[in-house]
């Protein structure tokens, strides 16, 4: 009997009209940057997709000035209702061009098309819709008396959810009346540049949104620029700390969404089949390039073998490969550098004595790939239990009592998210109260909604994004 092989079902690339090179988006127009242009490649094939400008200090200065002018002359004078109209318009255009954005995101980032199509892009549009509704209701959002914009906001976003992080940043900033200078990550700038076209299409006043591309030095120029009133950063804890140091003693405000090492805690009375799905979704969604990924599985010792057996059987069905194939579950690692880091940390896991298993799937010959991997016999002292791997690698630890689960879950410098799997409602509430994590999921994982605030404790950063709480960092209040 032949097995049920799924023939390739690739999404068409023809919907994306890529230019050979892109400039910076400043004051409503694309302009050449002063730095050395760099290439954005597809991590699945290492094919060059486009050449992108590098913004120098002078380019960042021009962008900040354009944002200041737009803020002073246009955006701060506009009513909330009118700002909302622009946001609604952008949201609708994102929906209309959703397929184009999804394909481009998968090309540039390496994530499976089913995720960019069903998660990233619909959620990005949803954030614009949600924040559009707040634009004329800020006085009623319990933000404090007389809520008003800071002015010009500098925003630096990561490569794991390029378009979604852009939406998380830009939508609340514009809704509250700020103007924006945003830098996408150097490995995934293309959807942000396509978004710049959307701003033009929506007739957004020039300078309200400025997009500057580049690597660390460009980000540094934004952080250091005296014309920036507030910073919003999502990325590594290391860079977050540098930003916090750089702005210490200045008047600049900041929100930081940083790393995580989330515990996904499975009790012996959990709905096992759904818990296995939640473990898979927790760490293999987006190749594990998720700051809130459930990278540590804490499973009650009495069911550890059973969960491990079911998990491995499930991982054997994961389909790793072409991100544009609609049946792909796990795509490409975003960059060579990230792949090297995953390899180094998993090698450390092995040499420190944890037992390594992967699903043995075939990997494409070109591009950056890593098999879904599980480490069992992991203890708190192992590096793979402590450090953020940011890849498709799960560390399995066990516990005996709820108290021990809490202690182990909290025994990390991070505190972004956690998951609890049990049929006992009272235990969910008790655990949620004890866990030092900004987001706690019960009997699910990696669920996001624009109405729900997201953010961390401890070294996972400060400030919240999403929901009413996500407006707070973008306004000042009082007389």
């Amino acid at each position, binding site marked *: *009997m*032949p097995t*049920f092989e799924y023939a390739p079902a690739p999404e068409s690339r023809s919907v994306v009209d890529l230019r050979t090179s892109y400039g910076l988006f400043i004051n409503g127009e694309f302009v050449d940057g002063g730095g050395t242009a760099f290439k954005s490649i597809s991590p699945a094939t290492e094919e060059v997709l486009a050449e992108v400008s590098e913004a120098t200090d002078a380019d960042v200065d021009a962008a900040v000035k354009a944002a200041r002018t737009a803020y002073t002359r246009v955006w701060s004078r506009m009513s909330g209702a009118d700002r909302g109209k622009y946001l609604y318009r952008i949201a609708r255009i994102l929906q209309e061009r959703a397929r184009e954005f999804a394909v481009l995101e998968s090309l540039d980032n390496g994530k499976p098309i*089913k995720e960019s199509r069903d998660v990233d892009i619909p959620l990005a549009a949803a954030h614009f819709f949600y924040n559009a509704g707040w634009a004329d209701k800020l006085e009623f959002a319990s933000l404090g008396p007389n809520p008003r914009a800071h002015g010009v906001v500098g925003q630096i976003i990561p490569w794991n959810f390029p378009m979604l992080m852009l939406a998380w940043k830009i939508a609340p900033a514009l809704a509250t009346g700020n103007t924006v200078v945003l830098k996408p990550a150097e490995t995934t700038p293309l959807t942000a540049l396509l978004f710049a076209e959307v701003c033009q299409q929506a007739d957004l006043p020039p300078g309200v949104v400025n997009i500057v591309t580049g690597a660390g030095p460009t980000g540094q120029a934004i952080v250091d620029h005296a014309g920036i009133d507030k910073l919003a950063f999502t990325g590594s804890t290391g860079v977050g700390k540098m930003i916090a140091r750089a702005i210490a003693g200045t008047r600049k405000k900041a929100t930081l969404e940083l790393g995580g090492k989330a515990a996904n805690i499975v009790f012996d009375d959990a709905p096992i089949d759904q818990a296995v799905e*939640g473990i898979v979704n927790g760490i293999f969604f987006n190749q594990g390039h998720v700051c809130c990924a459930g990278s540590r599985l804490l499973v009650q010792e009495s069911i550890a073998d059973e969960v491990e057996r079911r998990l491995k059987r499930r991982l054997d069905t994961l389909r790793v490969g072409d991100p544009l194939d*609609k049946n792909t579950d796990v795509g490409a690692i975003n960059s060579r550098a990230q792949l090297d880091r995953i390899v180094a940390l998993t090698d450390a896991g092995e040499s420190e004595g944890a037992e390594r298993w992967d699903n043995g799937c075939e990997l494409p010959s070109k591009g950056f790939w890593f098999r879904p991997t599980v480490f069992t016999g992991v203890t708190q002292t192992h590096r793979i239990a402590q450090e953020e791997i940011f890849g498709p690698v799960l560390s399995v630890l066990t516990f005996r009592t709820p108290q021990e689960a809490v202690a182990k879950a909290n025994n990390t410098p991070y505190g972004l998210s956690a998951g609890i799997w049990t*049929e006992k409602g009272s235990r969910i509430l008790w655990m949620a109260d004890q866990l030092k994590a900004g987001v706690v999921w019960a009997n699910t994982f990696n669920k996001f909604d624009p109405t729900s605030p997201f953010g961390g404790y401890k070294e996972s950063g400060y400030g919240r994004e999403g929901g009413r709480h996500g407006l707070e960092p973008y306004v000042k209040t009082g007389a």
Partner: protein
Amino acid sequence: MSTTTDTPVAAAVDATARARDLLGVSRLTNQALTTWLHGLPGVDQVGCEARAAALATRSIKTTSKQWAIDLAISMIDLTTLEGADTPGRVRGLAAKALLPDPSDHSTPRPAAVCVYGDMVATAKEALGASGVKVAAVATAFPSGRASMAVKLADTRDAVRAGADEIDMVIDRGAFLSGDYLTVFNQIAEVKKACGDARLKVIMETGELVTYDNVRRASWLSMLAGGDFIKTSTGKIQPAATLPVTLIMLEAVRDWRDLTGEMVGVKPAGGIKTSKDALRFLVTVNEVAGEDWLSNQWFRFGASSLLNDLLLQRQRMTTGAYSGASYIADDSPSTAY
């Protein structure tokens, strides 16, 4: 692809003795069954439905679609279960099963024709030694509200008339009132009355409502000796949904882990299109595994599904849609 339905039924075992053994009890009581069934892991409704929805996004194209359509056709229990059934209608259905597409003799035949007990002889005569089975619904289908004596007589009557397979209904009232032992005993007795006929146990999941109940009813049916677990009679909505079938596929998978034995799964009612059928096959493939991808272990209880599969099959062969007028239809159905 395997299309054989001729595997001999597992040697008759004393269901009660085996259940005692599996449960580790000296006497099979309702208390023992309750403890066992309620000890099964719970089902999280949101997570279960999300998993089914994710499986439904698989995109099956070209050669794999061709293969899956033929497989789906071979898994159909072509069904007519109406008060208005006549020998003529049953013969028409049998003719359809024997030659599903007169324009293409390479089209596989459905697994069985499924009728009420009094139509078994007619169906059997029409199908002869073709290999297409006759399945009969029995045990006071669809409600199951009759005495045990009547249910057994109903079963024996169908078997005597030549039924190869018996589709029984469980006593949902007993199940919902917590009387699992009655449900167990009824299935075990009907199984004995089946002789060599394979027994499909209809749980009527639309009346059990919760996924926890579906999981418990699946395990109870397997424990009592069912050869197949089946979702629905087709007379109650909702009938065969993908999440319910997913729960049942997990049950047969886990049952094999426990006992080494395979049990079949039959979603019935409400599966109308090729696209639906392919989603079920994807779920079979990824949840239970490829061992279940044959009509010995998976069936669709359906009638109109066949014509949509034929339409798609013609389109893949000829490159163009023909339309319903070009699909022979001896038995336009209203029930499914």
